């Protein structure tokens, strides 16, 4: 078990390193930050001065070494536009992204799991077919399109603008959570169906265990195991997943910051946001792996 945990941690660290290295390389090859920052008609000498000030004139490996060195000391660099630390910029935006993402996840869970369970327990009925049709729709609907529909609906039906900084989180969260809702519903249904038809469920019935108890004590814990993976992935996507939705609703979150920073070649900010996204992904995966130890004895006692 210790080996299991150590191996998972080692893999998490390696994943993070690969992620930051890739971003480091790609953002430097995708355009010259110094040129982006300097005035449009600046002569080459001025651009070179900018580059020197930002350390971009040094060989790539030196830049990489000092970047990684900085990371290890908690120095994430400064935004070349505002001069503020990248970390500070990120933290300013984080709360509103988390509010949006977690509300979306809650909606997805609160609707998706009961819907899927209901469909599984009424397999083959109209209810089941309706629930599955809905979840396919939810999953397949692109959120930029659905987001526009929501905004349009709000404007026409409620004479309100659902976007912007002061708006309620619910319309945007519903848009963001819709796809996850669909996949939760489908996943819950198939996982639960597989479990309630498992031999041990019949055996429990033959032992005289009543229906509700069979569902709660035996079916639910077993059906939850694959679901945990899916929920973990959604947790990991809390920050990264909302880029499009934030744009559509003008939501002042990390996603919007990322889009803007990429457009202006704000190296430190982009690097930090990608690092943060990779970190949440890895953390969520790690969390799922650890949670598996708790809920699945087949891993714990291997």
């Amino acid at each position, binding site marked *: 078990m210790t080996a299991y945990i150590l191996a998972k941690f080692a893999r998490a660290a390696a994943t993070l390193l690969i992620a930051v290295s890739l971003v480091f390389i790609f953002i430097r090859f995708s355009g010259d930050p110094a040129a982006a920052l300097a005035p449009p008609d600046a002569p080459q000498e001025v651009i070179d001065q900018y580059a020197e000030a930002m350390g971009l004139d040094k060989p790539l490996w030196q830049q990489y070494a000092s970047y990684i060195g900085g990371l290890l000391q908690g120095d994430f660099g400064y935004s070349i536009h505002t001069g503020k630390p990248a970390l500070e910029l990120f933290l300013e935006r984080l709360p509103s992204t988390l509010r949006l993402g977690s509300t979306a996840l809650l909606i997805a869970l609160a609707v998706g799991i009961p819907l899927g369970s209901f469909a599984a327990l009424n397999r083959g009925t109209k209810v089941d077919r309706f629930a599955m049709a809905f979840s396919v729709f939810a999953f397949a609907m692109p959120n930029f399109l659905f987001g526009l529909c929501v905004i349009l609906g709000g404007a026409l039906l409620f004479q309100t603008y659902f976007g912007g900084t002061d708006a309620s989180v619910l319309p945007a969260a519903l848009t963001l959570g819709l796809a996850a809702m669909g996949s939760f519903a489908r996943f819950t249904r198939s996982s639960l169906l597989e479990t309630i038809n498992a031999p*041990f469920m019949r055996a429990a019935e*033959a032992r005289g*265990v009543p229906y509700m108890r069979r569902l709660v004590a035996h079916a639910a814990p077993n059906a939850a195991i694959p679901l945990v993976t899916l929920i973990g992935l959604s947790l990991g996507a809390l920050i990264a997943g909302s880029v499009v939705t934030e744009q559509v609703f003008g939501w002042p979150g990390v996603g919007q910051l990322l889009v803007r920073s990429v457009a202006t070649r704000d190296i430190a900010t982009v690097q930090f946001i990608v690092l943060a996204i990779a970190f949440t992904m890895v953390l969520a995966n790690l969390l799922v792996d650890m949670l598996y130890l708790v*809920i699945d*004895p087949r891993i714990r006692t291997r």
Partner: protein
Amino acid sequence: MPGEPAVLSIENLSVALPEGGDREFAVRGITLDVKPGETVCLVGESGSGKTVAAQSTIGMLPKALPVVAGRVCFESKSLPPQRSKAFDSLRGIKMAMIFQDAVASLDPVQRIGRQLEEILAVHGVDRRSRKKRVLDSLETARLPDPPRIYRSYPHQLSGGQAQRVVIAGSLLLNPRLLIADEPTTALDVTTQAEILDLLKDLKRERKASVLFITHDFGVVAEIADRIAVMKEGEIVETGSADAVLGAPEHPYTRRLLAAARKRDPAREASPAKRVLEVRNLSLDYKIGRLLSKKHIHAVKGVSLQLEEGRTLAIVGESGSGKSSLARCILRLVDASAGTIRFKGDDITEEKGSKLRALRKRIQFVQQDPYSAINPRQTVLSAIAEGPIIHDATKRDAEARATELLEVTGLSVNAGSRYPHEFSGGQLQRICIARALALEPELLVADEPVSALDVSIQAQILDLFRSLQSKFGFAMVFITHDLRVAQSISDDILVMKDGEVVESGAAAKVFSAPSHPYTKALLAAAPDIALRRRAAA
């Protein structure tokens, strides 16, 4: 004890099959009594309706199978309607059931102790006495170290231990009737013998009645007081065990018994070309993660040879390394050491296009025909796929496939149907046809009949024999079942813990086994009892 009222009586019971089934009734007008302290064996092939009879007794008939006539009485009272809540107060207390796959009939994420205590809990036994009763029951079921088993999860138990756990659970509340649905079919012979002994002793000590469902006459001979033989939903013969086994009346019973007793005289060896030669083959598996690697020595220095047109049976219990050996020969895994020569060529490290060409010459038949076939492919295209990959034209491949369907005893129009429309025996015929479509020189069959009923087994073994004489391939036949090995093989190799403990001509190994392990295997085979009983 004559005159005593029956614990269970099934009276003229008929259960309908859904429309479009292969017959109208799952069971039709069956009548059967189980008296106190009596073991009644319900024998028949799969699809004969014996499981439906068991399900109706414990109220678990699926909705699609309604009772249309007759009734089931328990302790002289009519049972409540199928699937009704009223059954919850009978199941576990008055009647208990054990299943074929014991590990699967336990919840994988709960400890054994908790699952067994649940039986006591739902039937209102006081919390404080539960643990002790569970431990006692585990002890009664002769499990080693009951406190450890109590703390274990199902995946930590062997098949035999899991079946003992399920038996322990079924005995917790001293039910009057135990329904056992093929409880030893998934176990190897040694464990099977132990479980049957346990059931016999428990029946004697607890005076419980047992309704025992099986397809295996070897098992019947071990355990039955009375026998009811089922065929296509009807009981064709009932009587005391001695009467039915000694002087079967119905031709179907006679056929089943003959299939169980079948013995082929060992075929004469003839000098022929060597097809396969394995020298000092070893296979190690690495398991575990980065920091906790373990080596499992699955196969340790095995040597064997096989001549054209002959069959070598590899016999051993589960975990003996016989399937690992087969995978090496098939080049599905790479051997860790040793050499494999096929028709004189060293194929141990063949790669790429040469290995692909080799695949055509060495073919494979697996144990479970249900999962060995792509469910979304028609039978014809499944059989023709191999030849097409190996450069046959579609027309030739399909012509050959159709021919093979006939040769393997299937109807020609089976080709356009999908796998789910076939029974296990038919599917295995399809798998065999698929393997032979490539005209292999060597066929490796890994437990190809152990998922099938005895009488179907006999048919499939006959098919293997006739195909072998028709096409002349050599065959490596892997089995845990000595009866099967004896009926099909020219030579035998007995494996234990990855090593060969005995090998030689089949006739010699069976008549005069030299290794104690081989002797133990032979002694544990349940049909020994059958033969003894038949001789008496």
